[in-house]
């Protein structure tokens, strides 16, 4: 076996150009597979880390998924609203630690505007219960103060002190600007890798103020805006949803049931974790497809290897005959070919792992900054080892095709050199 291994290595080395190309093809495919998996894991973790520390998300009666999508992911539009009375009722409940209102409906150059209270900065958590941090500035104080997420600031080049205008509706281009209420940026949030990065945060009072006279969904000519109104601390009549933190775990389910059965107003209280995993199951289809594509690329790499080995066999009939003459059986010839393919796959898998970790290490800072995904580089995990082992095993199995051909050849050729 050792002699065969040494022969296989020498033989491969003598064909190193094709061997290296084969190894390269396998390496690239393995790197792709490992990279996809790393991104997938990163995405999944990032996804699950979008909101943490919030026990319930409460909104108008709808599906929990829908509620989480528009209140946390800023996807889709709220269908109805929640009365301020309900919010206050929950907020004052003795089991409730905190409650933060959310009001959506405006945008700023494609980024959504969220009206909320200053408590949002205190209670909102993402990842491993990481609180929001400021890159610059501070939370809003005044009605016309705004805080922008990291992506908003980066893509629009905003700094603290800049003045912005909000528009009615959620579209990028709006024909209904709230140009009568300019806002001043007072804070820029540090990147979180969550949809918060894409938010413009203002106070609930600001949302009320800019909609003063907009009750019909458009500016009312009869009621010209009054800037003094903006300082009115009176709460809005309606909000979009609110986030709730409970004092104890058992209280969460009780509160959820109570809210879902609340008779005075049709409400939905969703557990963010449950909704997130439900959502992930739906997105998971795409992610499995990506994985399948990467696996197919590995198969293509291995098929290339088989083709290369098969093509080489005819030129190597003499080599096999020499081996037969010194006492090798057809079984040895078979083993030699399988060893070659296994070695190629092994080298490919190792080179692929190196390539993947090299690329990930190089791309990690960028990916973390741009997509908010943390790609823990580190040592190969159990999954990487399993992939490597699977590729080597597949190389072994694929090698039986040329090996079988060589076996048949060497039976037919025997010691004959007349090829």
């Amino acid at each position, binding site marked *: 076996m050792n002699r065969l291994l040494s*022969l296989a290595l020498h033989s491969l*080395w003598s064909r190193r150009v094709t061997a290296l190309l084969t190894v390269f093809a396998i390496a690239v495919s393995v790197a792709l597979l490992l990279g996809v998996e790393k991104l997938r894991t990163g995405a999944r973790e990032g996804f699950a880390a979008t909101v943490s520390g919030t026990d319930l998300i409460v909104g108008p009666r709808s599906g929990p998924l829908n509620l989480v999508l528009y209140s946390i992911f800023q996807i889709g539009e709220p269908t109805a609203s929640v009365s301020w009375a309900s919010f206050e009722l929950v907020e004052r409940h003795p089991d409730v630690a905190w409650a933060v209102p959310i009001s959506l409906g405006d945008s700023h150059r494609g980024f959504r505007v969220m009206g909320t209270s200053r408590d949002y900065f205190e209670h909102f958590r993402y990842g491993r219960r990481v609180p929001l941090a400021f890159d610059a500035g501070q939370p809003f104080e005044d009605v016309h103060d705004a805080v922008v997420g990291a992506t908003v600031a980066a893509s629009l080049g905003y700094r603290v002190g800049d003045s912005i205008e909000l528009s009615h509706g959620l579209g990028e281009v709006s024909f209904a600007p709230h140009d009568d209420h300019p806002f001043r940026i007072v804070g820029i949030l540090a990147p979180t890798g969550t949809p918060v990065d894409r938010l413009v945060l203002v106070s609930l009072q600001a949302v009320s103020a800019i909609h003063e006279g907009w009750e019909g969904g458009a500016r009312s000519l009869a009621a010209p805006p009054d800037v003094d109104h903006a300082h009115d601390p009176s709460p809005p009549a309606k909000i979009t949803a609110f986030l709730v933190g409970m004092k104890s775990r058992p209280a969460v389910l009780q509160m959820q049931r109570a809210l879902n059965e609340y008779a005075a107003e049709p409400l939905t209280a969703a557990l963010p974790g449950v909704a997130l995993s439900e959502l992930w199951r739906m997105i998971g289809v795409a992610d499995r497809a990506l994985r399948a594509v990467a696996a197919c690329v590995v198969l293509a790499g291995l098929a290339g290897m088989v083709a290369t080995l098969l093509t080489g066999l005819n030129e190597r009939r003499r080599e096999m005959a020499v081996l037969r003459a010194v006492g*090798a*059986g057809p079984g*040895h010839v078979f083993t030699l070919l399988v060893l070659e393919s296994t070695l190629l796959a092994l080298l490919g898998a190792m080179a692929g792992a190196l390539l993947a970790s090299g690329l990930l290490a190089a791309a990690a800072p960028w990916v973390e900054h741009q997509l908010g995904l943390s790609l823990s580089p580190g040592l190969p995990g159990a999954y990487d080892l399993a992939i490597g082992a699977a590729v080597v095993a597949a190389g072994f199995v694929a090698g039986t095709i040329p090996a079988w051909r060589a076996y048949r050849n060497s039976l037919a050729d025997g*010691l004959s050199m007349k090829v």
Partner: protein
Amino acid sequence: MSSTAVHISGLKFSWTPGVPVLDVPSLTIASGERLFLQGPSGSGKSTLLGLLGGVLVPQAGSVRVLGTDLAALRSAARDRFRADHVGFVFQMFNLLPYLSVVDNVTLAGAFSRRRVERAGRDPGEEARRLLAALGLGSVSQLGSMAGQLSMGQQQRVAAARALFGRPELLIADEPTSALDAATRESFLGLLMEECALAGTTLVFVSHDAALGHLFDRCLSLPDINQVDMEPRAA
């Protein structure tokens, strides 16, 4: 054991049923004998060598090498028998071009522990001794890859390999036909010398009868083969 290296009796072989290639009623080669087997191409020489090497099995009769009936062995055992007891030198392409000269010689021990053991304490040293005895002494030649040698040098390496570990039987199939006349005689002389030293039986096959006088015995394959190959060979 016996003083018979090869004993063939009632041998019949055909590649396709009904078209016999070999029909050798009897052939005995004594141990240590140097036999010249002459036959034109197409006379079944290669087939006979395949039978002696245990790569082929006769449909009838027996091929006994060193007292062992090869047909009675399983195919893996026949391969091992060949590795242990038989050395081959062919007309050309005897070497693995990607191995060094010395590694090509010790390749004879790759599938036979017996050959390695019989090669002495240091197989590499024995390989170099054989190469030197066959006129390939220089260090530069030994270190080089087999593919870089001239044809004459390659044949010497092949002979050294066939002799490595002192096999009982050495089968040479037209080993000199790729060499020029001067090299041919010296090559043959050295080969025979080493065979005598190791007590190896030499079966030398060639279509060229001119070398026959150097051997203990000359046989013509068409004479011992009862299949009439003439119409097909022509």
